[in-house]
């Protein structure tokens, strides 16, 4: 513990993972397959997720919580989310919502910042808030014996926020320094390059804070953001742990009834991405390895094709060592430590994205060979075996996302935010298993042609003029294939 400062050094140095398999998104239940040693039969029954026991707890204010009571460990985890996030930053004040969330545990009621933090420690609680483009979220965890007192701290944080000058100034300074650091952060540079290249100009998703916008924010702006976003009628709550429905309901009433009933947040247009440029977008950064990031329009969460795309993504680059890209780029050629793709859905934009890192000298090769795999899946589709493997994993591993209170609280919140319905956990594996090979072919053909993707390279890449040749080389039949014909 207490290793915050070492997060770069020690954590990076002290423990190395073989695989870089930070497994795809948090989705995965058990199913079939022949393994070398033993042969395991296909398990037809649906995997249990342990979520058939969700209680819906409705408060008088109209908002509700999804609760899973789990007495095994004397702790409670609560997640809260409100629709409305950084897209509601006022014009010229980008960063205001983020700064507002910073203040939620920085002093409330009679307690200044230090007193509030001290009280949280005494209650063994953690509480904090964050914002994204579309959502503002808070989470709290505590020992169940301290639950009521901890929820009262949440009440104070949300409704009696002090907005003291000292923590406000500190938050501004921290943000300014974070912006400085971002100037040489490859991920940030790649993201901004995408905003500049393919996002509609001025769209809130493509905005980011600058020293000017941050310094223009006032404490009144923070109050305004809080009062418009953290309101009763958009509040979603999930709770897991050693807590009864009655205790939770009582705490909800006393914690949230002081929030405004409703507020005003920005109306955001759907994003239509511009056409991808034909050449990679390069951002110079003096380092020996290049970050290659690529993005194309993706499939919406409520699109009937979503699960076909989800399966296609597993086959392409979401499946760790089972994915084509990992096989071609890492296993066969040693070009990278990891290459991954993922689908992401925001309220107004869905994307299909990927990224990898390789030595500057081989950046062109990595891009060319990646494009070849996109092309191959788009034009040929998957094999039956790949489809079955994808379903086995995606359904089989699903319960792994439900083996802790914190994970269950997070999974339920994701389902609530995407409005998938309380029976989603029961239906989800059927939706994966229903995907046909034709559906995967069709979705791959529609979305994965390489020209749909904008490639961004951050570093000092070389051989970008060789991309086409590597593309062709990867698609050329191998010697064995030619011999076979």
């Amino acid at each position, binding site marked *: 513990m207490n290793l915050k400062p070492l997060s770069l050094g*020690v954590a*990076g140095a002290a423990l190395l993972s073989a*695989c870089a398999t930070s497994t795809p998104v948090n989705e995965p239940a058990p199913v079939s*397959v022949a393994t070398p040693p033993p042969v395991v039969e296909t398990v037809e029954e649906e995997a249990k997720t342990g979520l058939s026991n969700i209680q819906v707890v409705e408060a008088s204010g109209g908002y509700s919580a999804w609760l899973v009571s789990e007495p095994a460990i004397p702790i409670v985890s609560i997640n809260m989310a409100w629709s409305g996030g950084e897209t509601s930053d006022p014009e010229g004040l980008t960063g205001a919502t983020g700064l507002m969330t910073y203040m939620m545990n920085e002093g409330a009621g009679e307690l200044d910042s230090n007193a509030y933090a001290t009280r949280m420690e*005494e209650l063994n609680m953690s509480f904090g808030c964050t914002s994204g483009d579309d959502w503002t979220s808070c989470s709290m965890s505590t020992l169940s014996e301290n639950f009521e007192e901890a929820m009262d701290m949440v009440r104070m944080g949300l409704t009696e926020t002090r907005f003291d000058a000292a923590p406000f100034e500190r938050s501004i300074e921290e943000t300014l320094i974070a912006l400085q650091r971002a100037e040489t952060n490859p991920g940030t540079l790649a*993201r901004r390059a995408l905003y500049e290249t393919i996002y509609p100009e001025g769209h809130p998703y493509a905005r980011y804070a600058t020293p000017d916008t941050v310094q223009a924010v006032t404490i009144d702006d923070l109050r305004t953001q809080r009062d418009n976003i953290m309101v009763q009628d958009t509040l979603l709550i999930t709770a897991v742990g050693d807590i009864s429905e009655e205790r939770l309901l009582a705490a909800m009433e006393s914690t949230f009834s002081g929030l405004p009933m409703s507020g005003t947040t920005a109306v955001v247009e759907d994003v239509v991405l511009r056409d991808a440029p034909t050449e990679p977008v390069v951002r110079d950064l003096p380092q020996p390895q290049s970050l290659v990031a690529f993005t194309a329009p993706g499939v919406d969460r409520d699109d009937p094709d979503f699960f076909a795309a989800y399966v296609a993504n597993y086959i392409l680059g979401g499946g760790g060592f*089972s994915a084509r890209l990992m096989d071609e780029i890492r296993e066969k050629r*040693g070009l990278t430590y990891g290459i991954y793709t993922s689908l992401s859905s925001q309220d107004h934009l869905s994307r299909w994205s990927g990224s990898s890192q390789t030595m500057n000298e081989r950046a062109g090769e990595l891009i060319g060979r990646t494009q070849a795999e996109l092309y191959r899946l788009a034009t040929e589709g998957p094999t039956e075996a790949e489809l079955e493997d994808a379903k*086995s994993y995606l359904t089989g591993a699903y319960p792994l996302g439900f*083996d802790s209170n914190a994970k269950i609280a997070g999974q339920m919140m994701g389902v609530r935010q995407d409005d998938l319905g309380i029976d989603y956990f029961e239906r989800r594996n059927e939706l994966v298993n229903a995907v046909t090979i034709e559906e995967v072919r069709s979705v791959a053909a529609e979305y994965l042609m390489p020209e749909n993707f904008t490639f961004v390279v951050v570093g000092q890449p070389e051989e970008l003029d060789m991309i086409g040749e590597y593309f062709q080389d990867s698609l050329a039949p191998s010697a064995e294939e030619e011999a076979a014909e």
Partner: protein
Amino acid sequence: MRLIRSLALAGALSCAAPMALLAPQAVASSETEAWAPETFTLENGMEVIVLPDHRAPVVTHMVWYRVGAADELPGKSGIAHLFEHLMFKATDDIPAGEFSKIVARNGGQDNAFTSWDYTAYYQRVAVDRLETMMEMEAERMTDLILSEDQVLPERDVVVEERRQRIENNPGAILFEMMMDELFEGHPYEIPIIGYMDEVTQLTLQDANDFYGYWYGPQNAILVVAGDITAAELRPLAEDIYGSIEPTADLEERVWPEVQPLAESMTLTHSDPKVRQEEWDQYWQSTSYSVNTETLEPHALDLAAQILGGGRTSRLYQELVEEQGVAVSAYAFSWTDLRATGLFGMGASPAMGVDLETVSEAAHAVLADFIENGPTEEELARAQSSMIASSIFQRDNQASMAQLYGSAAARGDDLDRIATWPQEIESVTPEMVREALARYIADQPSIQTQLLVPEES
């Protein structure tokens, strides 16, 4: 979220949660009755640890080996980690590239990690697939078959991993320089991933030698956490792992003594990518494995919590809140190493403040802390926080498996994990003061400065 998810992933490739490993923690005393690990040993010497958690029909299956980067021969830095990668290649029954695919077809997730003290392999999977995972893990304990055309591309992968983790990251380069000095003459001075010029020279023969020497059931620990009991696991473990013949007797793992740091020094590293300067200071300390007779490791962990463990800590309150010379300030205690651990503190300056100002302010805070020790109230709060964190840790079966597996791999007494909360509770202000006096006050240390290059 504005972050592109995949970019976020690319930045956090270490699959295990290293933070969770860094201090032995355990269940609070009130919990030990209801919840307890069970351990037994197979005839071939393989230890078994079972950590029941029946909330979900899922298990975390791990095999730990008592070998890590600190056991490498001179000139072979990085072999423990490269070999860990190679364990995902072919065996006589599993074709090349199939291991992780088979795990995935079974709905499982797998990975492995290497530290100085140990190497571990794991799968997270539905409990009805546990037996398959055990058979595969047992298979590669003895039947791995390596070839040049597997070793060479994987060595390239590791070189890219090194670029990604170290060469691309000025803070990691400086940390490597610091460890090289703090542990001079001891294997902790060598980076786990290896030196670039040595990793690139590792061979198939090196990998086979390493495997033949270190890998066998007598040097391994099985940990299964999740929806299983010892009674259910025992017959499987005896059948699958217990039937493996022990390999040749290993000599005891002996590392050179850690030499006390001869004198204090300051190391600097500047890089055009640095936008925010940082200052850190490191001391050799002790560890739970080395120091089993006293509560000094506990006292140092509590000292770090009080000195720099968050917003209420002394360093944060003084440097960030009172003086406004820093935007962050912290302390850390790394006591879960098989050999000597380390203690440290650090800060990142506010705009326009130089590193000297920040370090002087931190030194004043430390001097007062060393002289007067913690107050009763501070200590009680730190004790409560650390004990509570051991309860929160039980929410995650994988992190419990790591806690027990790493302790067993270091050779620690596992019963001490359960008694850790009581031990923390019994630390007095005087014990904290004495530990600081012994390990920190007037002891040589290394300061590091991560710098923005001077304008030319």
